[in-house]
C-alpha cells in the first residue's frame, strides 16, 4: 500500500510542478513576506524537523525558535500536542501556529495524525498532553462548544448538514434566533434569512436560494454552506477537513476560491488535503505530519512539491532534512 501511495503522489507532483511555476510567476498576490521572514520560515522548518527527530526533549527549543510571523503573535498556537489511544501514539509533540489571514495546509499520509490534530483543536477529542493558546492565552478546549467560544469552527468531512432542512435552518441549527426570549417563542425566520443571505453574499457563495433544502444542493454548494455556517458564527479560525474530496473539478475550484476569500477576510484557515496541487494553490504554509510528528513546517512557495512528497513519505531528498 505504501509504495502505491508514494507512486500516486509522485505522479501528482509531476503534474502540479508545472502548474506551480505558473502560479509563483503570477507574483504571489498574497505572499508578501520579506526575505527575513522567509529565512525564519526555513529555520522554523528545520527546528520542527529537529523537534520531530528528538522527541519531547526539544520542547523548549522549538518554542525558542522565532516563528515566522507576518502579523506578530499567532492567533492559534498549539504546543507540544500529544495524543495516544492506549498504546498507539497518534500524535507526538506537535506544534501548530495559525495567523489570521493565513491558510495553513495540513498534509501527510493516511494515519499521519492530521484528523486527530483537527479533532483536538475542534474539541471532539482532547489531547493527552500539550497546550492550545488563542491570542496568547491558554485555553481549555474540551468540547466543540469550547472551540466555538474560542472562535474555532470545524467543517467536517461529512459536513454535518441536515438534508431535510433549508440553508437558513442549517446555518442557524442549534442557535436559532427567536422573536421573543420565551420558551415556545416563534423563530425569527426573516432575521435569520437576512443574516444568511448577508454572510453568503459576503463570501460570494452562490446557491439557488437560501430556502432551498440542503439535500437539493450540489456537493460544492453544500461545502460552501457548511463554511458559511462557520463564518456566520464569527469564527476566526476555520478548520476544513478534506473539503474537496468527492467534488467535481469545477466545484473544487469553487471551494478553493472560498478558502482564499476566507483568508482575504482575515480568517485563519487550516486545510487538510491529500491533493498537493490544491495545497500549493491556496496554502501560505504547509505543515507536514508524518507518523504523528511534524515532519516539516514550510512556506508554500519555498518548497518544491518534490520536497513535500519527501517529507510526507519520509524519503531522503537532498537539502531536505527528512528523518529516517
Amino acid at each position, binding site marked *: 500500500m505504501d509504495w502505491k501511495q508514494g507512486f500516486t503522489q509522485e505522479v501528482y507532483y509531476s503534474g502540479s510542478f508545472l502548474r506551480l511555476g505558473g502560479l509563483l510567476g503570477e507574483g504571489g498576490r498574497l505572499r508578501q513576506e520579506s526575505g527575513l521572514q522567509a529565512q525564519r520560515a526555513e529555520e522554523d522548518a528545520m527546528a520542527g524537523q529537529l523537534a520531530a527527530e528528538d522527541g519531547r526533549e526539544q520542547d523548549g527549543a522549538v518554542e525558542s525558535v522565532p516563528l515566522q510571523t507576518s502579523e506578530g503573535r499567532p492567533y492559534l498556537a498549539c504546543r507540544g500536542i500529544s495524543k495516544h489511544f492506549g498504546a498507539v501514539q497518534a500524535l507526538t509533540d506537535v506544534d501548530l501556529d495559525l495567523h489570521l489571514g493565513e491558510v495553513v495546509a495540513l498534509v501527510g499520509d493516511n494515519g499521519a495524525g492530521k484528523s486527530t490534530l483537527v479533532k483536538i483543536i475542534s474539541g471532539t477529542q482532547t489531547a493527552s498532553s500539550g497546550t492550545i493558546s488563542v491570542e496568547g492565552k491558554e485555553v481549555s478546549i474540551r468540547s466543540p462548544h469550547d472551540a466555538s467560544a474560542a472562535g474555532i469552527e470545524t467543517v467536517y468531512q461529512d459536513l454535518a448538514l441536515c438534508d431535510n432542512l433549508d440553508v437558513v435552518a442549517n446555518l442557524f441549527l442549534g442557535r436559532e434566533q427567536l422573536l421573543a426570549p420565551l420558551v415556545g417563542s416563534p*423563530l425569527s425566520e426573516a432575521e435569520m434569512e437576512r443574516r444568511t443571505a448577508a454572510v453568503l453574499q459576503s463570501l460570494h457563495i*452562490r446557491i*439557488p436560494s*437560501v430556502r432551498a433544502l440542503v439535500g437539493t444542493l450540489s456537493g460544492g454548494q453544500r461545502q460552501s454552506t457548511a463554511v458559511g455556517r462557520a463564518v456566520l458564527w464569527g469564527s476566526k479560525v476555520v478548520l476544513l477537513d478534506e473539503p474537496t474530496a468527492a467534488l467535481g473539478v469545477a466545484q473544487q475550484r*469553487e471551494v478553493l476560491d472560498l478558502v482564499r476569500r476566507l483568508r482575504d477576510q482575515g480568517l485563519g484557515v487550516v486545510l487538510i488535503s491529500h491533493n498537493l496541487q490544491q495545497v500549493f494553490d491556496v496554502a501560505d504554509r504547509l505543515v507536514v505530519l508524518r507518523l504523528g510528528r511534524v515532519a516539516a513546517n514550510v512556506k508554500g512557495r519555498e518548497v518544491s512539491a518534490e520536497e513535500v512528497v519527501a517529507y510526507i513519505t519520509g524519503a531522503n531528498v537532498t537539502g531536505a532534512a527528512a528523518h529516517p
Partner: protein
Amino acid sequence: MTQTEKQPVASPPDPALAVAPETIVSGNALRGILDPRRWLVSGGSRTFPLLALLVLMWVGFDLKTGGIYLSSENVTDILVYTSLYGIVAIGEVVVLLLGEIDLSLGSLVGVSGASAALIMTNWVPHAPSLVTMLVGVAAAAAVGVLSGLFAGFWVSVMRVPSFIVTLALLLALGGIGLVLTNSQTITVTNDLFNALGASSISAFDGGYLPPALWGNHKDILHLSTGMLVVLILGIGYTLVLLGNARVRLASGLAAPSAFGLLSQGLAITVIGLIVVDVLDHYQGVPLPVFFLFVFLIIFSYLLRSTRFGRHVYAAGGNVEAARRAGISIRRIRWTAFALAGLMAGIGGVIYTARNNANNGGTVDQSFLLLVIASAVIGGTSLFGGRGSVWSALTGALVLASVQTGMALTLTATTDAQYFQYIVEGAILLGVAWLDTYARSRSAGSREA
C-alpha cells in the same frame, strides 16, 4: 457553479452590498418555497394525488349510494372517524419525524380511556358533572404522558430501539388494561364526558358546536358557532401571513404579495365555512373534529415555528449533525414520546366518550395500524425528518372515507370490514410507491 471562478478575490465585503436586494440568494428566496423539488423532499408530492383520490372516492361513493355518502349525517360520521385516528396520529407523526416509532399508542388509547372511566365511576362519582369530566380527562392525559415518558426513558436514556420498547409496551399495556378493568366493560354515565366524543345520537346538543347562533341554519345566510370559529381562525391565519410578509419586507427580503396572501387566507376560510355549513345541516361541528383542528394548529405551530420543532426535524434528518450543533437528542426524543403519549391519552378520552364506555381497556386491534397508516399515507416518512402534522389529517381522512364508504355500499357488515382493510392496504402501498418514485426522480434531477 463555474461562474465563481472569475470572481474578484480580494475585495472585502461592503456592508451595504451584503444585504443588497440584487443578491442572488435573497432575490430568489421565494423560488425555493415554490420549487417542486422542495415539495418532493418534504413529502408534499402526496398532496395532489391524495386530494385527487379523495375527490374520486367521494364522488364515486356518493353516486353509488345515491347521495347518502355526502349527506350531512355521513360527512359528520366521516369527520368524527377522521378525528379519532387523526388526534392519535398527530402524536405518532412527532415520533416518526425523529425516525422513531411508537407502537404502544394503540394499547395506550385503551388504557388511558379505562383510567378515565374507572376514576370517574369509582373515585369521583358524586362530584359535580364538570369536575368529574375534568378529572377524567386529566387522568387519561396523565396516564398517556406517563406512559410516553416511560417509553421515552427507555429509548433516549437506555438506548433500546423504539420499535422494541413500544412493542413491549403495547403488549404490557394490553394486559394492564385488562387487569385494571377486570376485563369488564365500564359504562360512563357522565354526559359532559360523553359529549367530548359527540356520542349522543339522541341528544341534539350533546357534543357539537351548536349550529344556531344567528339566523336559521337552513338558510344560506346564517352564522353558526362553528362558522364563527372558522372566521376567527381564518382571519387570524391571514393576519399571521400578512404579518410575516411585512416582517420580511422590513428585513429587505422578498415577500409574497398581499393580494396573494389575502386570497390564500380567504380560500381556506371559505373551504372551512362550506364544511361547517354541511355539518350544521346535521347537528353542527362535532367536538372531536373541533379538538382535532385545535391540536393540528398547536402541533403545526410547535413543529414548524419553534426551536423544539426545528430540532425535531434536524434530529430526524441527520442525528449526528443535530448533536454536533449542540442539540440534546435525549431531551428531544423524550419530549416527543411524552407528546405522543399525551395525544394517545386525548385519543383515549374521545374513544371512550364516543362509545360511552371503555371496553376492558382495549381498542380495536386495527386502531394502532390505522393510526400509523394515517401518518404514512399523509406523507410522513418512517425514516424521519420528512412530513408534517397535516399528514395526520389527510391520511386519517382517506382511511375514514374508505371506512364509511365501504360500510354504506356493502350490505353485509363483515364484508364491509374485510374489504375496507384490503382497500386501505392497497392505498397505503400505492402512496408509498408514489413517494419512492417521486424521490428517485428528485434524486436523479439533483445529480443531473
